[in-house]
């Protein structure tokens, strides 16, 4: 390899080495790129709702669908409400367990949350839909999810959810579950809690 | 590659890549491929064909779901 005739080869080798090393680096970046990519796919297909808070807060709805969309009275969808707590000493439940709605109809429901501890606690709720497909047809105009909620000791709070089921919902879906999970935020600022998203 | 390689055109590259998707290739055709193809072009054609493959499969799935739902 060190013989003089091989100089051309050595530089060829080095060029190929650099290219391959670069592609390895690009693929390392691609691994991280999969994160926003996955979110975009989820957003587009409604598989999982891992949206950014601001996207969830109704902005999306206002932007891409008119509020006065036609109410489809020929179909009724049963919307169930579910609540989960993730290691949080609260009481969290929907005020009504389910409602029957027509697609396109504006619906207002409430969740009730109570801090049962003698200290203020901050939590944050994440929504999820079953079947997953329903997520993209579920337009929330008002929602407490992704906003931090700090409850004083013993405080009880009623939190509204206002939503419209998109009339484009596939005809074979007639039961949707909206589920919220409350997580405790232990002394975390908003910035760090969304740290994963920022990268 | 002692003899000066002749550069294959886009179609020839695409044809070789499509045969590779099929997984069968005649030896003489392979010798021609190996002699004429530009590796970078093969990679580009491969990625392109892969994307087309995925899109076709997605369309088939959409069609199947449409048929099943109807």
């Amino acid at each position: 390899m060190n013989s003089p005739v091989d100089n051309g080869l050595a530089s060829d080798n080095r060029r190929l080495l650099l290219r391959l090393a670069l592609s390895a680096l690009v693929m390392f970046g691609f691994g991280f790129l999969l994160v926003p990519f996955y979110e975009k796919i989820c957003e587009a297909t409604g598989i999982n709702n891992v949206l950014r808070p601001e996207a969830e807060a109704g902005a999306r709805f206002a932007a891409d669908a008119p509020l006065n969309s036609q109410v489809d009275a020929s179909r009724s969808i049963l919307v169930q409400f579910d609540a989960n707590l993730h290691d949080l000493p609260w009481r969290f439940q929907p005020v009504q367990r389910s409602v029957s709605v027509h697609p396109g109809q504006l619906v207002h429901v409430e969740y009730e949350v109570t801090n049962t501890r003698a200290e203020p606690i901050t939590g944050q709720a994440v929504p999820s839909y079953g079947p997953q497909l329903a997520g993209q047809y579920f337009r929330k105009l008002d929602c407490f999810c992704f906003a931090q909620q700090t409850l004083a000791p013993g405080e009880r709070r009623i939190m509204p959810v206002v939503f419209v089921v998109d009339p484009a919902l596939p005809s074979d879906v007639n039961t949707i579950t909206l589920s919220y999970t409350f997580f405790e935020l232990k002394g975390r600022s908003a910035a760090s809690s969304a740290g994963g998203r920022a990268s | 590659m002692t003899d000066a390689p002749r550069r294959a055109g886009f179609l020839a590259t695409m044809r070789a890549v499509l045969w590779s998707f099929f997984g069968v290739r005649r030896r003489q055709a392979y010798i021609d491929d190996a002699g004429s193809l530009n590796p970078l072009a093969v990679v580009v054609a491969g990625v392109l064909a892969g994307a087309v493959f995925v899109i076709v499969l997605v369309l088939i799935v959409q069609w199947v779901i449409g048929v099943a739902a109807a």
Partner: protein
Amino acid sequence: MAAVTPDQLHGHHAPGGVMRWLTTTNHKDIGTMYMIFSFIMFLSGGVLALTIRAELFKPGLQVVQPEFFNQLTTMHGLIMVFGAIMPAFVGFANWMIPLMIGASDMAFARMNNWSFWLLPPAAILLIGSFFAPGGATAAGWTLYAPLSVQMGMGMDMAIFAIHIMGVSSIMGAINIVVTVLNMRAPGMTMMKMPLFCWTWLITAYLLIAVMPVLAGAVTMILADRHFGTSFFNAAGGGDPVMYQHIFWFFGHPEVYIMILPAFGIVSQIIPTFSRKPLFGYASMVYATASIAILSFAVWAHHMFATGMPAAGQLFFMYATMLIAVPTGVKVFNWVATMWRGSLSFEPPMLWATGFIFVFTMGGFTGLICAIAPIDIQVQDTYYVVAHFHYVLVAGSLFALFAGAYYWLPKWTGHMPSEFLGKLHFWCSIVFFNITFFPMHFLGLAGMPRRIPDYALQFADFNAIASVGAFGFGLSQLIFIVVVVKCIRGGERAAARSWESAEGLEWTVPSPAPYHTFEEAPVVR
């Protein structure tokens, strides 16, 4: 496996003793070290496997506690995949690719030395994690979040070990690509290249493409564990399923990284002992490329139980079923190579034939697993354990042994004992099937994997599997005897050690001199 006797070192200013091995840039030395390292790792992973089988010999907890059991299954997987099988193939590549293409050494000899010497520290870090507070990671070799976020310090050590091994693999892969593309002897055109070089070239590209993705995935876990991010934590807007997508984007091509070089080895051996050229050489190359490309579009078939929408399940089901086609082409080609040949069954051919047989059985269960509804039923059961051991033990490992017996004469200068080689093969294949065939039944009947204790109806098959596992483990000791005997002496091997072996590696003397092809040979 030391291929070099001191007299061959004369005239080369190589340091002696330990320093020689630490500083060597010779592809043969490095190949030998890779193989010794991977065999040691294979034995350590095997000890973990036998501990697992001892615990599962009968219902109830006897040998280990559940927590330690989970550490055993996790480390068995990590050690076998990253410590045993992958380095073993890199070792083969180091030894054989320069010899096969008529190059004097690998393209980047010094980088080659680094990529090997990164491995022992990584292995120490990995195995040492058993002694960390809280023990080794117990999250399964897939390290699924959020379970892996819960783990103790052992998890961090495993992550760093994976990082180091990943860097090593990438450097090895780059070296192989450059060597294959740039260092071929005059006249050794791509289409004349032995199939082993072809499969390794494609494998190396796969490695460069996916190892960094794995590094990214485990880095994200590390960040979730220590830096307050929430890539995989729903509370911060992340998604645990995303980890599985990223992991399997690496993980599925990884499966082919571990099997494609095996295809290459088998494609070298079958024609030699059939005394007939490989059937459909061109198709073999194209089928390999096809498998490599398709392997990027099937990853989520490992995740059917996570609950994808129907469209997703169908997409990945169809794509996965299509992979069976090029794989089938390969098996058909091997059988067609044997057809109307003039066969003889020396140990390498025995292992290669055994490879085709058991690998195809693994292929069948793979096809069955591709059907999403059936997969949902057997996912995370012993059926899947049986499936991937048929593909990885009977596939990759058997091909590695086939290759080792095939090239031992070239490495050591002596023919391996035919009797011991055959004994090793027959013990291995019988005990292998005793171990893993009953696992199909266990999985179908409903035994989940990664459990330290099980319901009573699974007792008899588990007992059989445990007996088989100990038999299989002990059979591997025969290989040590074969290799030691082979190094010490025995029948002198000719340059062309097997009657109709083809290829440049058989034109140099056996054992291969320390430096080969310093003057590039001219091919035809």
